């Protein structure tokens, strides 16, 4: 498995504010493919991305990215390493005081000494890839949510990274926006040879584009494999999640006392 996994998580344990978020998570994320990490809300999917990116440090276990153990890198090395990663945040997170053009140019201005005309060409190429070359002079406040994300995507590929992480890219998108994003994720992955990690709880869209998926719940990986393998997964929890059954291993009713007590039904048991 070694070389073909770009990211390798082994027995990762992580807690925050007393809550154990990951209780021994192990996963292999293959190189050059789109991997979806799915799970119910609050299962720590975004936290996983932060662990991979080195913004958080795990309590125990190892997080290896391209052969390097992220938690052991020193601050300067980590910052250098991050130039190979792109991350698309849920809200786009564009810098509100810079124009679209300046936002996409930002990583290049900071990390490279490229001359202005080269930056100009690269920015326009990246914007073209996401279909927003004509919007380059606008400010983020003038863009719609979907356009915001596309510009953020252009920004995250500005330095031609090896890895790109998407945090809930489909959340709150209308069908057209969804279609646009799906196309972009797929095209970028194949044309740039990226390793894409996609975190979402939108099962349908995620499974339609990913090559490999992991489902995380209760701090552990409850199922992993290709979309076809997951459809036939024996675990009830996995099936409930994938098919959206309202009741199953994750119960519908919040734990409470017997109905007869609450409703004051008299007499004996039926």
């Amino acid at each position, binding site marked *: 498995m070694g070389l073909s996994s770009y990211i390798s998580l082994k027995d990762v344990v992580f807690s925050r504010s007393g809550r154990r978020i990951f209780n021994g998570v192990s996963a292999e994320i293959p190189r050059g493919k789109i991997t979806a990490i799915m799970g119910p809300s609050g299962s720590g999917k975004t936290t996983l991305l932060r662990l991979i990116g080195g913004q958080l440090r795990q309590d125990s276990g190892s997080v290896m990215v391209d052969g390097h153990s992220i938690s052991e890198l020193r601050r300067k090395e980590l910052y250098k390493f991050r*130039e190979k990663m792109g991350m698309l945040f849920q*809200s786009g*997170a564009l810098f*509100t005081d810079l124009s679209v053009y300046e936002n996409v140019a930002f*990583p290049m201005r900071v990390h490279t000494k490229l001359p202005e005309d080269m930056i100009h060409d690269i920015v326009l190429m990246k914007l073209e890839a996401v279909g927003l070359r004509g919007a380059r002079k606008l400010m983020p406040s003038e863009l719609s949510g979907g356009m915001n994300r596309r510009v953020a995507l252009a920004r995250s590929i500005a330095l031609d990274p090896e890895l790109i992480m998407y945090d809930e890219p489909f959340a709150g998108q209308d069908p057209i926006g969804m279609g646009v994003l799906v196309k972009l994720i797929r095209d970028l992955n194949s044309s740039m040879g990226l390793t894409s990690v996609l975190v979402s709880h939108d099962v349908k869209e995620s499974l339609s584009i990913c090559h490999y998926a992991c489902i995380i719940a209760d701090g552990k990986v409850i199922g992993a494999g290709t979309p076809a393998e997951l459809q036939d997964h024996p675990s009830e929890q996995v099936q409930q999640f994938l098919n959206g059954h309202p009741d199953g291993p994750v119960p519908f009713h919040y734990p409470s006392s017997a109905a007869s007590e609450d409703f004051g039904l008299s007499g004996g048991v039926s």
Partner: protein
Amino acid sequence: MIDRIASFGRSGADLIISLGRAGRFLAGVLSGVPRPATGFPLLMKQLYSVGVLSLAIIVVSGLFIGMVLGLQGYTILSDFGSEAAIGQMIALTLVRELGPVVTALLFAGRAGSALTAEIGLMKATEQLSSMEMMGVDPLRRVIAPRLWAGFIAMPVLAIIFSMVGIWGGMLVGVEWLGVFEGSYWGNMQASVDFWDDVVNGVIKSVVFGFVCAWIAVYQGYDCVPTSAGISSATTKTVVYSSLAVLGLDFVLTAVMFGNF
């Protein structure tokens, strides 16, 4: 009862922990000299928003405070027949105390809260996170220029405040109440010493600028990234800065002007 004591102790421990975090934060911000090519324009932009935009409130406040000092001072001094001393009264009060302190309080309210809100909002919309993920240290790119801008702008604002106040006092004292202009300036010049009074006042405002800027920037960086969190952080900036300024003022005054 035990719970009360325990929670009291916990708040004390929290305070110390938060001071420690603030200290580590400051070390992260100050370490590393920024590249002049990128650092300088960022600093200029911040100086503009923190310094130049605060001028309006500083000048107006300075003017009114100077005029009030003139009015009140005249009333009190005329009981002793010493109206001519009004110049030195206004000048000493402004240059030694009111200039640095009131400017710092106004600064904390206007520029400090704006800084906190801005940084807090950047945190809440994940702009700081995305900067980190792009390999850019937000402490150096976003926080440091704002800290230095506050540090530099404050003494400038305090000096302008004092100048405008003294001029305002002259307007009231000389033009309106009839104090002889020569004695206004003459008495002032005789009793205000540049090194002991003006320079000490400037030193005070440098210290206040540093503290106010540090508190403002830290509260923004450390806030809970929700709208409630940002508003609470903004309030904390204003309250903590004001308390710190008043407390430090006492200490500095005792050191500088106390005759031990």
